[in-house]
């Protein structure tokens, strides 16, 4: 091989390995657009905030579903944990939002860490049931311990001011949206970086061929536990945001249908490329509001129908076209998504 060929290969290799590192213009436009929406549409701040929080929640699910290929029916548990952790903290007088956020994420992460080993054994159904079982158990625990959680009546609390300055509860919806946006962006950027690291590559390998990943020397169990814990932390952060910005927490956060909803959001947008959760969350919430306005009691039916059609048609997602603009961020994010 001539020297020219060799250096051509080197160049090509370098370009290939680094292709995802830079933020594409499509991504920059996306984030600026969201920020602009918050600033320019203060009357819609409430729903934008809701979309952002749902997006973060869906992003957290993407970390385990899209990256590691783990199907979880109980991810709402971490969301609920984060929400209640932040709310309880605030109701006890420690109302600083940032503190609540970190606490919520930490509590969720700890539970995630403890329950992750349960995922490692058994087949798909087992994993599914374990995740579901854990979330239902937590829901029951929350229900039975009304003295902490307020039970079915919910909890009364007020979040403090952000950075001691900005009100973010009912009265500060635009601040709330900006706060959520900031948290989402930071966490997203971290996840994006993670996706391109050797760790992220290993997760893709585990997802695509767990047997071979082990044969490469990857300690698959440890990696899975790590990403599950991180995903739990992200979900907990989303829950904490919800509690702090809406001042409402309720037991239905642990419900099965919450886990089903977030999965649907992620599937609509497409799992495995990080933006899917965000786009799916927006689409889901907009769709839900539009349909509920038209047929309030039966919107569930249309969601179910959409899901059935989506699956039967091979899960082509809205995200497909947008993907070309933003380009692949995560390694090996297959067109078909997961497992």
């Amino acid at each position: 091989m001539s020297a020219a060929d060799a250096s051509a290969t080197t160049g090509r290799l370098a370009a290939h390995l680094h292709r995802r590192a830079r933020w594409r213009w499509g991504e920059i436009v996306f984030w600026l657009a969201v920020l602009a929406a918050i600033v320019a549409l203060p009357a819609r701040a409430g729903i934008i905030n809701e979309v952002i929080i749902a997006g973060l929640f869906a992003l957290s699910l993407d970390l385990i579903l899209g990256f590691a290929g783990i199907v979880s029916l109980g991810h709402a548990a971490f969301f609920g944990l984060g929400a209640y952790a932040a709310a309880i903290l605030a109701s006890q007088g420690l109302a600083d939002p940032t503190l609540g956020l970190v606490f919520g994420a930490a509590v969720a992460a700890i539970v995630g860490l403890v329950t992750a080993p349960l995922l490692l054994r058994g087949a798909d159904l087992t994993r599914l049931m374990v995740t579901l079982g854990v979330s239902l158990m937590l829901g029951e625990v929350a229900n039975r311990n009304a003295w902490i959680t307020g039970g079915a009546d919910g909890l009364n609390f007020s979040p403090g001011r952000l950075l001691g300055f900005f009100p973010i509860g009912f009265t500060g919806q635009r601040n709330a949206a900006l706060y959520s946006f900031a948290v989402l962006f930071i966490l997203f950027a971290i996840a994006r970086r993670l996706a391109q690291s050797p760790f992220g590559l290993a997760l893709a390998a585990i997802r695509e061929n767990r047997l071979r990943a082990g044969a490469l020397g990857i300690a698959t169990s440890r990696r899975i536990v790590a990403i599950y814990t991180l995903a739990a932390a992200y979900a907990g952060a989303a829950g904490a945001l919800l509690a702090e910005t809406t001042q409402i927490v309720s037991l239905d956060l642990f419900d099965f249908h919450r886990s089903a909803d977030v999965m649907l959001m992620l599937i609509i947008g497409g799992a495995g490329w990080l933006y899917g959760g965000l786009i799916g969350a927006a689409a889901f919430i907009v769709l839900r509001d539009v349909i509920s306005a038209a047929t309030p009691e039966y919107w569930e039916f249309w969601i179910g129908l959409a899901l059935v059609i989506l699956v039967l048609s091979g899960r082509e997602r809205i995200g497909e076209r947008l993907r070309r603009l933003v380009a692949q961020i995560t390694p090996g994010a297959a067109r078909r998504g997961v497992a």
Partner: protein
Amino acid sequence: MLTILLDGVAYGMLLFVLASGLSVTLGLMNFINLAHGAFAMVGGYVTALMMNRAGVPFLLTLPAAFLIPAILGAALERTLYRRLYGATPLDQVLFTIGLVLMAMPIAAYLIGDEPQQVHLPQWLSGRIDFHGVGIGVYRLFIILVCGIIALLLQTFLVRTRFGAQLRAAVDDARVAQGLGVDVDRIFAIAFAIGSGLAGLGGALAADVVGGIDPSFPVKFLVTFLIVVTVGGSNGILGALFGSLLLGTLDVAGKYYVPSIGAFIIYAVMVVTLIVRPQGLFARGDGR
């Protein structure tokens, strides 16, 4: 205490009938059917509506409660389900969740949100006193009927040719096909029977759970899944044992330690999965 035990056994038998169909589809086709509860709901509605609106006696409604969901199941299997036999678990989960989400509003639209009650005939109500122990007549009835069903199923599987073909198909569908077993037809029939059993279970359960309403499928979905997970997917015995175990623990738990309530069955499931991830009665290859 014996009363509690019998109540638990009755509940367990009920769960068995309800969940046996799910166990079959899971064990047979490795298909995760979260819409199973919808068939139970249909069966419950059949009985309730036939009794309340057409005055049909309770016992006579039971065959219909089996047949109608069975036919529905067969139809859905032919048209929709079979497209997803090779699909990923995620797809199966999403698809069947979609079906359930559709089924519930349809029920609410056609029949209304109010729980439909099944009023038991005189001869099935009340209690018997047996050596100082009070036993609900209906509970006995359930144990009897479900016990007979369990026996019939076991005989069916073990003694008939169809049963043998079914078991062959479960072990290895490709080999069975090579031996001339019409695997497609087997799947369809198994699915229909499973759905029918769910319907029958729903009809029998209506009195016990306080009526059938549109949220039935989701309310009991988890319980069914727990039964199947704990019992393993290795046929009737596992499902029966799992159901009885969970049934008695659930009833006993709620009676003796009401503050924990439903927590017990979830905890049992999680513990089981930790110790034996394939369920208590799984096949040797751990599927």
